[in-house]
């Protein structure tokens, strides 16, 4: 009993730490002027999210999050940022424009609305969660689901990744030719 409540206390501590890290790094991503720092902050964000996933009994997802997301994807990000050189822009520079006001307003409105929705729901039945087996969220369960009910989702995911890869190749490939209007008539004249 005591152990359980201590466990819960510990969970709370971890949760609070992770949640604040998550939110803080999220805000940092949005606020840093240098994309490089933003990207680093996002890595922190992803890591803290992985902790939250663990608390939600999603071990496999948490692992994937760290490995695939924070690892592979963000490395790519950092490479590109390094390649392009960080071009900074100040999000709040130039005082509030209508875009800024609208952005803050819309984001705040969405936040409030969903929070209100959650609150209304929570007043009802959102607090009691289902009992789950220990294997919940483990690789075995995930694997089974991916190969049975969600086989198609699995396959689609691969197709999406393949398409993105092709896209990356197409867009990243070097090919220099003229622009509309200038190059085209020239070419025609030579043929």
């Amino acid at each position, binding site marked *: 009993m005591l152990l359980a409540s201590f466990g819960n206390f510990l969970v709370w501590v971890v949760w609070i730490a992770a949640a604040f890290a998550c939110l803080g790094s999220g805000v940092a*991503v949005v606020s840093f002027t240098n994309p490089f720092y933003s990207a680093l902050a996002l890595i922190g964000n992803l890591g803290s999210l992985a902790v*939250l996933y663990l608390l939600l009994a999603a071990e496999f997802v948490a692992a994937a999050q760290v490995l695939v997301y924070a690892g592979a994807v963000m490395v790519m990000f950092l490479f590109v940022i390094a390649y392009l050189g960080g071009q900074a822009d100040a999000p709040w520079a130039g005082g509030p424009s209508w875009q800024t006001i609208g952005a803050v307003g819309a984001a705040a409105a969405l936040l409030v609305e969903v929070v209100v929705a959650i609150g209304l729901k929570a007043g009802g039945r959102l607090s009691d969660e289902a009992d789950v087996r220990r294997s919940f969220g483990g690789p075995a369960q995930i694997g089974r689901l991916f190969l049975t009910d969600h086989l198609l989702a699995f396959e689609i995911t691969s197709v999406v990744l393949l398409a*993105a890869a092709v896209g990356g190749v197409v867009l990243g490939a070097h090919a220099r030719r003229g622009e509309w209007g200038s190059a085209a008539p020239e070419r025609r004249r030579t043929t």
Partner: protein
Amino acid sequence: MPGPTVTWYLAVSVVLFATGVLGVLLRRSPLIVLLSLEIMLNGANLALIAFSRYQGRGDGQIFALSVMAVAASEVVVGLGLIVALARRKVALDVDKLTTLRG
């Protein structure tokens, strides 16, 4: 004292999502916009996993995993575009992408 309920996780996910929205709406650097999009997707992922736990069903996690892959794909294409734009010597500022307008 029970542990944090789904509601708390959801609150985090919503704030995260809103932060992402704010980033997309405010930032002019396409790189940071892409990062903000990632934050939005992660907010959604957190919600999915929280609900998955709440409902006791695994499909939310499956969904979240797929979303990760999708997010990666978007990043690939997005970065490719940004690189291509940078090669065209276009300033990396979404507010300067206004040849198409009106």
